[in-house]
């Protein structure tokens, strides 16, 4: 009962006029920053951090958390309308969000994403409220072998659920993982894979470079070539009635994915170093596995939009938990939030809930208020976002190219990376022509920097014995499930061959 009294105080604090105004501004700013390819919550939070010194710490963190929330909602917008995931957390949203937009159902995709994000964020906040200290201690039990097993599971969902061409999927995963190793060996500090001795590679290859190349350039070229520039989409519904009917359809066809994403996303988000990207990917995979119509996934299934969107919002709330209770940031954005807290004189850790209870509960209260504000503001702006899709394609296409190039530069500040975007784009176009799936490569470049150090640390712990992934109580079952998923296509093939014979 004490929890509810603290929570009520927290919500009242968040509803103070100054805090409410900061939430509304933060969510709106975050929504637009998140919708811009190349910019994500980390940019918004980092840029606006200095402004927060003008207000008390509780209001400051509420403002930054509102930007974080808004950007999480906004990530889906560029995935659906432009087909470019603005952040790694929104890659899985493109799988079904983009096909829906191409079918003229962009508003359904955006409404589904908004509602799923709302449910995901709210479920995660309820979990956060009730189980924060308990979950923090569970998350502490996740060492390198457990995190690596989780990464293996994320990759396995691709192989187990990928298209018909498993070798091409495996190639794509390995390619993305190798690209993630370019630059420096994070453990020894030695330069590694400086391709063709071009010095620009020492800085590594960022996720955004590959993602913008593949989706902003490659996919666009492919669309222009396939459709011969004559892209036809039906006029999206722009009325309040149209939005209401989309909302009804989103609830009916996206509830399953929403719940899977909300619950799974939170637990993956809580784990230090895991974060929202594997959470959204796994939720998509699990939603597809248990779906009665898995063939609809990838062709515009509302469940396929709801699962990753609910998961990334749920995980972003979950990622706050290790930050507040243990002082371990689960994502780059929470790392900046952590930095802000330290500057404001607050010490994250187990004692924060006791020593600074007004601050902590004010923040938790703001999660609830921010979520409501974010879903309402997002729904209000949907007509503006779908309006973009009504532009002639010969105007929309150059705008997408410009946003890709300028967004790519904003993210990396390097001409070398701009050329890499173009090279990846042209390469992706030809790979796409021969049915190579490219999403696995994009996600692998995000997960690679988590997977490699955890694998090496695990093998160091076990003196090179790989059985460490099977004998530990948490890592073992996850590894076994991952291996079953990897072998699933082979088993299906054997069964099919058996039936034929």
């Amino acid at each position: 009962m004490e929890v509810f009294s603290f929570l009520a105080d927290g919500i009242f604090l968040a509803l103070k006029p100054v805090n409410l105004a900061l939430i509304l501004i933060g969510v709106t700013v975050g929504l637009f920053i998140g919708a811009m390819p190349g910019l994500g919550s980390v940019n918004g939070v980092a840029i606006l951090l200095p402004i927060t010194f003008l207000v008390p710490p509780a209001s400051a963190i509420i403002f930054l958390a509102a930007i974080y929330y808004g950007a999480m909602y906004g990530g889906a917008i560029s995935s659906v309308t432009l087909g470019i995931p603005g952040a790694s957390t929104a890659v899985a949203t493109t799988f079904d969000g983009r096909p829906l937009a191409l079918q003229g159902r962009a508003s359904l995709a955006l409404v589904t994403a908004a509602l799923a994000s709302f449910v995901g964020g709210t479920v995660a906040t309820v979990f956060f409220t009730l189980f924060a200290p308990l979950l923090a201690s569970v998350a502490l039990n996740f060492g390198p072998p457990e995190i690596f097993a989780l990464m293996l599971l994320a990759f396995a969902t691709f192989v187990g659920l990928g298209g018909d061409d498993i070798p091409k999927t495996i190639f794509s995963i390995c390619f993305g993982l190798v690209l993630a190793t370019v630059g420096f060996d994070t453990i020894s500090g030695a330069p590694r894979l400086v391709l063709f001795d071009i010095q620009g590679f020492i800085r590594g290859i960022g996720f955004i470079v590959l993602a913008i190349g593949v989706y902003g350039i490659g996919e666009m070229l492919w669309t222009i070539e396939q459709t011969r520039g004559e892209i036809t989409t039906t006029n999206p519904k722009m009325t309040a009635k149209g939005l209401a009917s989309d909302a009804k359809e989103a609830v009916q066809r996206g509830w399953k994915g929403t719940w899977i994403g909300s619950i799974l996303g939170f637990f993956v988000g809580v784990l230090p170093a895991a974060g929202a990207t594997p959470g959204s990917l796994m939720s998509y995979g699990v939603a597809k596995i248990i779906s009665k119509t898995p063939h609809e996934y990838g062709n515009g299934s509302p469940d396929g939009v709801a699962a990753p969107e609910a998961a990334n919002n749920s995980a972003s709330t979950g990622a706050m938990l290790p930050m507040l209770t243990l002082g371990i940031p689960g994502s780059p954005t929470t790392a900046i939030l952590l930095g802000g807290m330290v500057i404001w004189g607050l010490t994250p850790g187990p004692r924060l809930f006791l020593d600074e209870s007004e601050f902590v509960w004010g923040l938790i209260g703001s999660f609830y208020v921010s979520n409501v504000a974010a879903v309402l503001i997002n729904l209000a702006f949907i007509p503006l976002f779908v309006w973009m899709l009504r532009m002639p394609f010969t105007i929309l296409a150059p705008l997408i190219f410009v946003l890709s190039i300028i967004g790519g530069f904003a993210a990396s500040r390097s001409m070398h990376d701009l050329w890499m975007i173009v090279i990846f784009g042209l390469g992706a176009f030809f790979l796409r022509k021969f049915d190579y799936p490219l999403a696995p490569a994009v996600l692998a470049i995000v997960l690679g920097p988590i997977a490699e150090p955890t694998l090496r640390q695990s093998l160091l712990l076990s003196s090179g014995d790989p059985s460490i992934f099977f004998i530990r109580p948490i890592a073992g079952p996850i590894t076994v499930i991952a291996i079953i998923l990897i072998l699933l296509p082979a088993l299906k093939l054997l069964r099919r061959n058996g039936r034929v014979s």
Partner: protein
Amino acid sequence: MRQGEISLVGVLALFSIYLMWKSAELPIGYIRGEGPGGGFWPFWLSLGMLLSCVSIAWNWSRGKSPASASDEPLMDAFGWRTVMLVGGGVVGFVALVPIVSMYGAVCLFMLYYLRFLGRHSWPLTLGLALMLPFALFFFFEGAMQISMPQGLPFTQPFFDLMYDIIY
């Protein structure tokens, strides 16, 4: 398509071998007391890429993939022309950035695409090609405080004027 698929697999297999060779500049095995060497992870993944290429080539030889069973050309003349004009436009856009600045390159690219590829009217083309760089300037330089490449010195008067406006 059939010829194209095996040629692409060949290129990717060669690239995989190059990556294996490059990874082997760092230790690829287990070092006692230190764990796996720096080249361990990329080397074995590159080997995975190579084995995938072998598997793709095996499927190709049996005509299992749609491309390997197709005698169609990779692209017709229209497709090649589109890719050259659009892809070439993007390459030109990036090449112009260090010369005429990011905003100048955006303006020229929009002019090229809207007028010559999209065949839009001059008023629409000029309106968009001139307004978009200004909007992007205020967003990136003013609101986000992210500086874009300014090109050769001849663009400096433009930037001086714009910075006077935002600061």
